[in-house]
């Protein structure tokens, strides 16, 4: 019955122990970590230790590969596409702010592995150098990373050293650009103006500040 299983679900001490174990395994390659109480654990590792982290996690018993992706922390220069195309472009905050466990670069690779018997997962992040966006491939660690890395490469333009074939998964092979990067415009929001821009025409000659007593 499920009550035993619920009892076995680990608490935050276990999560902290996992971080400690990982730190002892990879040393100072572990840059930062965050244990959110009752929730989840995030660690950030050095770029050159990306594969080593994977191997270390496997040896810690994290055999289940959940997903691998990336995050582009740059705020979108296009907003939500709900601006009036005739009006001047609005000012937008373009400071890059990374999320949990910090970061230094615009893009981060994010992966999640899970311990199949302890039922606890770890979110691993690693910075992707802005100059040369390449990290090590995780295929030798988890064979299933193959497709995830292909997808990430296609969507973010992040290279994976040691990946046998980084072909596009979804898009045509001659597609230019990396759609999930924030500076890639979403065409659907550009070709057509937002119907919410059009507002009710004011009363001819009437002043706008005057409020009727309706509703």
């Amino acid at each position: 019955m499920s009550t035993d299983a619920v009892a076995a679900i680990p608490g935050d001490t276990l999560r902290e122990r996992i971080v400690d174990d990982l730190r002892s395994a990879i040393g100072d390659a572990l840059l930062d970590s965050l244990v959110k109480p009752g929730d989840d654990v995030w660690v950030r590792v050095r770029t050159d230790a990306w594969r080593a982290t994977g191997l270390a996690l496997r040896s810690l018993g994290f055999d289940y590969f959940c997903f691998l992706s990336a995050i582009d922390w740059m705020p979108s220069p296009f907003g939500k596409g709900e601006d009036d195309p005739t009006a001047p472009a609005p000012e937008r905050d373009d400071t890059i702010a990374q999320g949990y466990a910090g970061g230094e670069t615009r893009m981060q690779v994010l992966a999640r592995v899970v311990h199949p018997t302890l039922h606890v997962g770890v979110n691993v992040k690693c910075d992707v150098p802005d100059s040369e966006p390449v990290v090590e491939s995780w295929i030798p660690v988890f064979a299933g990373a193959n497709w995830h890395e292909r997808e990430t490469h296609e969507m973010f333009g992040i290279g994976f050293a040691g990946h046998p074939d980084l072909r596009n998964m979804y898009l045509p092979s001659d597609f230019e650009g990396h759609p999930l990067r924030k500076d890639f415009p979403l065409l659907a929001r550009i070709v057509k103006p937002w119907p919410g821009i059009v507002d009710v025409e004011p009363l001819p000659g009437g002043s706008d500040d005057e409020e009727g007593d309706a509703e």
Partner: protein
Amino acid sequence: MTSTESLIDRRQLSYIAAQAADARLNVELETEGMTLNIGPQHPATHGTLRIIARLDGEQVVWAEPSCGYMHRGYEKLTEVRTYPQVTALVNRIDWLGSFANEVPFILAAEKLMEIEAPPRAQWIRTILFELSRIANVSLFLGDLGVQMGAITPVFMAFRDREYVLNLIEGATGGRFHPNFDRIGGLKDDLPAGFIDETRVVMKKLRNFCDEMENLLFGNEIFQSRTRGIGVIPKDVAMQYGLSGANLRASGVDWDLRRDQTLPMAWNKVDWKVWTHPDGDSYARCWVRLQEVRESTRIVDQLLDDIPSGPVMAKVPRIIKVPEGEAWVSTENPLGEMGYYVVSKGDLGPFRTKIRSASFNNISIVPWVLKGVYVPDIITILASLYFILGDIDR
């Protein structure tokens, strides 16, 4: 190459050897190699998946799925939409079990907002979640027959799935895309008469499961088509991140409904996680059949004691989710469906990584199809059970 890799290679080789030993007539006529394109328009790939298979006679030397014919870029789309709008969007990922897609996303947003739906909402969510699982997997059971040439099961599946869809539509208004979950609860309460109807339907579905067991699973032809075909060992399944029934059929006792604490009602009732040690196509199909049965049991028990009360927690009218990151995954009909939501405190998510089950499940295809025969491609694909929208997102 690590040691595990060579182990996998060895298993793969022995698997190929075993398959080759079964060669028809034991006389293999070697023929010119041939590349067969299965799809994108092919009756076996329910959707527009394309499998490029290099054949030697009828044996597959190398196979590679090529997806993307239905890529809709949902991860990008979520970045320009508000949270309620995203709920309508994620319905369309696994379109056969739509309601189940909404739940983890809403739970992730609720986690970031640190609110929890009231118990009645949790109960109803769980009931609808399981109903969508039944709707999804019962279609799988019927479709399985069609993939193997039996045309009758699919009609029976559609017949009984219709009852479930009627229930979902009666409660949510949407037959396929309910869009019923809201951050903090549900859009509305159940309509009167829902509980009684559901009980009747659950009985019908258990009957449907019996019929499938007699018509398909007990059939020796079906067994000889599926047993020992497409064996996925435990460690390979874990490496590729298989989930759901595919993982449990490889003998991994892991069900996210049981093994994590979510504000849902699964751990309030008595049910069983089915596993199968074989890891072959038959095991995958069999586990799914048992899961449909188990789901009907869960629904029946949940119906007995729905708590009364509101279905909506107190949430602001304009929902802004506080800054943070959250990962929530649930055991969807197809497997583990998770959302990694990054919020910057806006009306909509900053980035959403949609971890869909089929993407991982289908990524094992090149591995598992090596050395099988053309008819087995179909069996294995059918037993892995994917939804195109769930692969391409």
